[in-house]
Structures are given as structure tokens and as C-alpha cells.
């Protein structure tokens, strides 16, 4: 009876935006007479931080200080359409909506500044809240003065709106082939898990996880780390602890109490090491791809592979609870070999469990 250490890893990919697209996000932005910026977007912040990321994108697209930007995502009267916060679409699609709207606002600022400075808009740039002549920055006007002139002299509300939308990708139902990309970008990640397996109790402890994420561009690295760490612990829960139906497919012993459900807690926290890679997306705001959804996908297989590395058994029904690990250790199952076939898990297969060998599933046309 002993504790065994093992290491496993996994490399994964995940799409940005709703599968098959067709999921618009819209935004509109207006300037107050002192140049301060109001952003209206329907993107819901479920904790991932879209209010922060969107205001960062707007500040840099316009060239104004971050604290000039306020965001209203509170209601459907003042904000335009956002399909929703899911499918890792907030930063890419919601972010592109505010970026494109901000670019239109920027054009209006430059137009009015051009009249005030008598310089062609193409020779102007905006930085730190000031419109400057390229090459001769002493010729300048504050964005606040531009907004004031627009409001009181030119009779214009400086505003801009836009929609980020990729057209719906039809699928050939016979072959699954698509004519256009059914996503906005693809993010990649790898996770290495070090575990300790107690062969007496079957208990698995995750000691450390190293995680590498290509997010295209980290608009806010602090928030990216938050996704990596939160996702890691959720992935640990998936790999080892959580189950709505402890005796699935049976519905018996389903717990209705918070304390009856094994969500990961402080005590389960392993050492985490995060690496962020920036391989920019051609189409994302500032090159961003996404991270939120994929963040709990790499840990479960990394943990399963680490358990195999530690004690030589495969647990392919999730989660790898102590009873499953002990059962696997007891069975010490070897795959069945049939010619060049190496067959694992036959007892779990539809062929075994269905009363007619799973004919309804396996018997479809080629």
C-alpha cells in the first residue's frame, strides 16, 4: 500500500463564438460634451469581466484615458442586441462590436478636429485624449474641446454604432462539411497535471498543474489569469469530484443540498503555474481570441493520463472517484486484442449494454 506519483498532459482547442455563427453583438457609443465616453452594449458580465475588457478596448481604440470611459450594459432599452454571454464570444464578438463602434466615433472626432485645426483628418491622430497633428504635435486640440465644439457649434452628437456578425455557416447534413468557417477563431491550450494516487483508498490528489493558453492577445492579463485559475479548479472538479448523478445512469442518490455536492473547495487547491501565449487572431479585437469556455477542458484528460502514469489503470468514466480508481486497480483490466485491434472498455460499450447491440446507433448508413 503506497502513494504513487504520476504526470499527465493534454492539448486542446476551442472555438470562439457560437458554432455556425449568426450571433450578432451590437454596440453604440456617444461622447458627452466634455469628451467623456458612454458605451452601450448588451453584453452580460457573469463575472468574466466583459465590462472591463470592453472599456479597455474602447479607450485604446479612441485614444482616450481609460477612466474617461463608462459602460452601460444594464438594460435592453438603452443597449442594442447582444446574443449573449456564452460560447466564449464576449471578448471577440462583443469586443469587436465596441471596437468597430469606437472606430466610427474616432472618425467623427477627427473630422471635427480637422475643421478646428484646419488639418486633413488623415494627418491627425488621437493619444491620451488629445487630437494631434502627426509629426507636429504642438498643433493639437483636446477631445474634450472637440466634443464641446460638436455639441455647441456644429450641432452634432458624436456617436457611432456597429455590429459584429459573421454569417451563418450552413452544414451539409450528409458530410458535416461547411462552406465558411463556423467559428470566429480557435484558441489552444495545454495542461500538465501532477497527481498522487493512494492505492489503498483510491484517492487522487492533484499536486500541481502547469497550463499554457494561446489567447491571441491578453486584453487584460489579470482577467485572463482569473479564467485560467477558475477554469483549472472547475476542471479539477470535473476530473475528480463532481457528479450530479453519482450512480449514473441511475438517478438514485442525487443530492439537493449544497453540502452533498462535491464542488472543489479551498482544500483542493493545487499549485498552479500559468503561461499565456499570444498568437494573434487576424480578426479579433487587438488580436484577441478567447479563453473563458475552454478553461476547464484540458484538466480532466490530463488528470486521467496522470492517474494512468501513476498506477497503470485507465479511468474513462468521469470523475475518477476513489471507488472507480480502486475498482480499476482491482480489475487491472488489459485491453482485448483481436488482430490489429486493441479494444478497451468493452463492458461500457453500447454494443454490450444495448439489448440489440446498439443497432439503432451503429446501423446508420455509411
Amino acid at each position: 500500500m503506497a502513494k504513487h506519483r504520476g504526470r499527465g498532459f493534454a492539448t486542446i482547442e476551442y472555438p470562439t463564438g457560437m458554432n455556425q455563427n449568426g450571433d450578432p453583438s451590437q454596440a453604440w457609443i456617444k461622447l458627452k460634451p466634455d469628451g467623456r465616453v458612454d458605451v452601450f452594449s448588451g453584453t452580460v458580465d457573469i463575472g468574466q469581466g466583459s465590462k472591463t475588457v470592453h472599456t479597455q478596448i474602447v479607450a485604446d481604440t479612441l485614444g482616450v484615458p481609460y477612466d474617461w470611459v463608462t459602460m452601460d450594459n444594464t438594460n435592453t432599452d438603452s443597449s442594442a442586441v447582444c446574443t449573449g454571454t456564452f460560447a466564449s464570444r464576449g471578448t471577440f464578438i462583443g469586443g469587436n462590436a465596441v471596437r468597430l463602434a469606437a472606430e466610427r466615433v474616432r472618425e467623427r472626432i477627427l473630422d471635427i478636429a480637422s475643421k478646428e485645426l484646419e488639418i486633413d483628418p488623415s494627418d491627425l491622430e488621437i493619444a491620451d485624449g488629445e487630437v494631434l497633428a502627426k509629426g507636429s504635435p504642438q498643433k493639437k486640440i483636446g477631445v474634450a474641446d472637440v466634443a464641446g465644439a460638436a455639441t455647441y457649434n456644429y450641432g452634432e452628437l458624436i456617436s457611432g454604432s456597429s455590429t459584429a456578425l459573421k454569417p451563418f455557416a450552413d452544414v451539409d447534413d450528409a458530410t458535416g462539411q461547411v462552406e465558411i468557417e463556423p467559428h470566429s477563431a480557435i484558441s489552444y491550450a495545454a495542461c500538465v497535471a501532477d497527481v498522487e494516487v493512494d492505492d489503498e483508498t483510491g484517492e487522487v490528489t492533484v499536486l500541481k498543474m502547469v497550463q499554457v493558453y494561446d489567447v491571441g492577445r491578453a486584453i487584460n492579463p489579470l482577467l485572463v489569469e482569473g479564467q485560467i485559475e477558475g477554469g483549472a479548479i472547475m476542471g479539477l472538479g470535473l476530473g475528480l469530484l463532481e457528479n450530479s448523478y453519482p450512480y449514473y445512469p441511475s438517478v438514485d442518490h442525487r443530492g439537493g443540498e449544497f453540502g452533498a455536492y462535491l464542488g472543489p473547495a479551498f482544500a483542493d487547491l493545487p499549485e498552479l503555474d500559468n503561461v499565456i501565449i499570444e498568437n494573434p487572431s487576424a480578426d479579433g479585437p487587438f488580436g484577441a481570441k478567447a479563453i473563458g469556455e475552454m478553461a476547464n477542458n484540458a484538466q480532466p484528460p490530463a488528470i486521467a493520463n496522470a492517474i494512468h502514469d501513476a498506477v497503470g489503470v485507465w479511468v474513462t468514466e468521469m470523475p475518477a472517484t476513489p471507488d472507480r480508481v480502486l475498482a480499476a486497480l482491482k480489475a487491472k483490466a488489459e485491453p482485448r486484442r483481436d488482430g490489429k485491434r486493441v479494444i478497451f472498455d468493452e463492458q461500457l460499450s453500447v454494443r454490450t449494454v444495448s439489448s440489440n447491440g446498439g443497432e439503432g446507433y451503429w446501423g446508420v448508413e455509411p
Partner: protein
Amino acid sequence: MRLTVNGIESEISSPPLTPLLHVLRDELDVTSPKAGCQQGGCGTCTVLVDGEPRRSCLTPVAAVDGASITTLEGVGEPERLSPVQAAFYEKYAAQCGFCTPGMIMAATALIDRKGGPVERDEVLEALGGHYCRCTGYVKIVDAVMAASRGEVGDVQDLPVSEAGEPSVEVHGSPA
């Protein structure tokens, strides 16, 4: 019954077995303690009762008659954050923010009790019954340890910095 909540004394009219959580939220309109599970399982309803952290969902109000109650509203103001609040803010220890009230109350009690720097194991122990689904706990542990050491800045100075360059060169990229 009477309670002093965040320094303000009030007469309580709810029935004696009403959970303290409901008295705070529904009678006194003090809404930072959240009804996360109302089973004592998640910790987000935690308040300080005479300085000690308690689950307000499991505490009948009669059991704390006359006590002094501190909720997150009483810990600091938006313009004057406590060290624990400032550390949670700076270190991104709150994502959706729903567990945050209980976390900060428990952390505040831990640091007050210890009276000096707390170690990682002490944080895991003191906050062990508090649940967070968003953060993975890492930045909460960091925030509590930093707060206990006074390692927090002035939150009015937003830490805007120059954009970082990609940390790893990637071949085969279109950009």
C-alpha cells in the same frame, strides 16, 4: 429584540426564529449577505457577530439578540476601502462578486484575530467552508495574505501600464 448593525441600533420585529440573513436583507435592507444556499454550505451569508464570523442563514435572530453585527457594508466605503477590500480589488479576488461578501468577512475576522501576517495554510483553514465557483481560489488566498501584510496600494491610482509584448514568439502566425 435589538441588533446593532454596522453601528446603527435597530428594534427587530421579525419573529424570533427568523434567520439573521432574512432580518438583515428583508427587514433592515442590508443586502451584502447573500442567500447563496441557505443551508450553511456556501458561506456567502457570513457576517460578524460580536467580531466572530457566523453563517447568518443558520442563525436565528433571537440567538443574537443584543449583539453587534458587522456586514460588508460596515467594513469600508467605496472611497475608503479596508485593506482586505483593497487587496480583493487589486488582486482580482472577486469575479462575479457573489461569494465576495462572505469571503471578505471571514478574511477580516482571521486577520483581526491573528493581528499580523497570516500564512497560506491559515487562509485555507479559516476560509475552508467558503465556496467560490469563479476564481479557483488562487487570487483570494493571495489577497488575504497581502492584506494581512499591508501590501495594498491606493486603489484610486489605476495601475495602467504599457501594453506587454507577446511572451512567446509564434511561428506560422498570420499577424
